[in-house]
């Protein structure tokens, strides 16, 4: 059987048999503790400066950010963004309770469907689980209320993120995920800016297969 053949060949190279029980227990302990390695100091900042670092990094990676004072202002921010970009006001939205609680009806011009994205959807509004200041990265764990297709299929991706969900380093986002979701969801996407390719003459062009635009609506709830 290939599995045994491969493992045997590895052990032969390592000049030992299967790992002794005490060593295996030690490694299992390391997995359970998942120790952090060196974390760059750049994101070790007071929270307001982490928010600023996040915004700077999203913009550096060709994303855009709109900061609003409360969830009630999200519909205006979304409608204004779509109008400014000359985009249709039809969108598909994640069926997430936080997004559902937003008073969308106050902007009746926005036509909203809830669910996963289909090929015909031009604009998607997604719920961001966390933001990572270190590189301006959004974290989207998949769930029935946060379908993966909303991250990649539409031409324009809009993410709604609360500032209280903004952390400094990736490791802090993993801790949030472990604590709140209990284990790995089927899919976790870390997204840093809109889709791009440099395959043609090593020159950067935005909008390869994923979204051409990434817009973050940052809701200030951190106090």
């Amino acid at each position, binding site marked *: 059987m290939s599995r045994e053949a491969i493992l045997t060949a590895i052990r032969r190279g390592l000049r030992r048999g299967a790992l002794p029980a005490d060593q295996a227990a030690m490694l299992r302990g390391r997995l359970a503790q998942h120790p952090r390695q060196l974390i760059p100091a750049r994101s070790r900042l007071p929270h307001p400066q982490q928010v600023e670092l996040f915004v700077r*990094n999203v913009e550096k990676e060709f994303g855009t950010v709109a900061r609003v004072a409360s969830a009630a202002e999200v519909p205006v921010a979304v409608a204004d963004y779509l109008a400014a970009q000359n985009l249709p006001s039809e969108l598909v939205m994640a069926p997430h309770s936080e997004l559902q609680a937003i008073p969308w009806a106050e902007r009746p011009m926005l036509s909203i469907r809830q669910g996963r994205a289909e090929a015909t959807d031009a604009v998607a509004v997604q719920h961001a689980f966390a933001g990572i200041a270190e*590189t301006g990265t959004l974290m989207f764990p998949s769930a029935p209320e946060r379908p993966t297709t909303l991250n990649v299929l539409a031409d324009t991706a809009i993410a709604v993120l609360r500032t209280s969900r903004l952390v400094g380093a990736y490791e802090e986002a993993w801790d949030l995920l472990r604590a709140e979701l209990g*284990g*790995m969801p*089927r*899919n976790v996407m870390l997204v840093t800016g809109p889709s791009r390719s440099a395959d043609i003459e090593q020159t950067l062009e935005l*909008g390869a*297969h994923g979204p051409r635009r990434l817009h973050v609506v940052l809701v200030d709830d951190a106090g």
Partner: protein
Amino acid sequence: MHVPTSAAFKQNAHAAIDDPGLQKALARSGPSFIARRAAAAAALPEFEELRNTARDIKNHTLAHLDFYLETYAANVEKAGGTVHWCADAEAAREAVLKICQAAGARTVTKGKSMISEEIAVNDHLEKHGITPVETDLGEYIIQLRHELPSHIIAPAFHLNLEDWEEAFRKSHTDLPADRVFAERRDILTEARTKLRARFLAADVGITGANFLIAETGTSVIVTNEGNGDLTQTLPRVHIVLASIEKVVPTLEDCTSLLRVLARSATGQDMSVYTTFSTGPRRDADLDGPAEYHVVLVDNGRSAMIGTEFQDMLRCIRCAACMNHCPVYGAVGGHAYGWVYPGPMGSVLTPALIGVDQAGLLPNASTFCGKCESVCPVKIPLPGLMRHWREREFERHLTPATQRRNLGLWAWFARRPSLYRMATRAAAFALGVAGRKRGRFARMPFAGGWTQGRDLPAPEGDTFFARYAQAQRDGTLR
């Protein structure tokens, strides 16, 4: 099938140097990779220390590879996925084909994967009536042109805009012949439209993996285009093709490696899409594949463990070594004759296809050491190439003239005073002759060597003489 032409490296290199299109592409793109990596590394004060961390994580994993692979496989299965252990390329091709056939697949979309090139899975699928479609932009044109990638992260490194236009006009015959390609964006838009239809129609999606995480049974892909995510999200079946050395223990370990990967590769702080996949679609999910398979490939890796080449298994395929290599910069990737070019290819290829086939590759190095100095996991690439040269010499695979010249050199080297006198005289003569221009464009008996490069003229005395002088002057530091 990709028949390796590594044994013809010399002829390949000559052809490459005489290829104006390739030389244009190399001159355009080479320096920008170097500058972007340097800027990204300089912007992160911990970067050098992170390289040590990355090396240590990989070394720890390789020392316990059997344990981490078993843990990884158990966790994939716990999440509802299937692991197919494959000892060699043939077994891996067969495993992929069987999964595709069981899914009744007609079209298969593919994310960029070097292991897929290594095992030549596309040809195998085509032979059995299944159409593989490469969706990474660079891989897409390579497939249209029936070529191998010339670079491990920029497959179409060797191509110019006119090559793209030509391939697209030839292949997309359903589009108006009089359409205009004014700029790169027009190429990108046409590819996006063409491939969007493929993404939606595919029955199976095949991706590679940058990392496998033992802790969670997760496969990780890193892309900028988003093609990998469409490939693994839309079809009913997702196949992950990964070699055994991709495994790392935890999410934290993977995160540390990600911090050096994009910076070393493209000079980005982070690639656009870093995606962690764990098993198939969960019960109430609205999207994602119903089946999740991992084809876990050995194909020569386990035989490197416990040898001097074990260090090579730390490689995270960032391409920094080839981006900084003067030999790659002069001849491009295709001259290396198989899947992996540049310094990492010169070490890995002989291990995978044999030193008798690929023995010229570790010789195609000036040992300038640039590759090792930028490697994010600190693989001693020149040292490993030297090991291959020794093995080649031991097995009498080195050409007779080379062995004779080495013998001549050894005769001199064993007679230090004679050696010093001869080198001093040569340095003096060359220094006088080349004083004006500082270099020689032509040398007697070395026309082949100077055709593609200049020999710098010695500036004065030999190292030995200068060292001795400095010792006498007391200026030695």
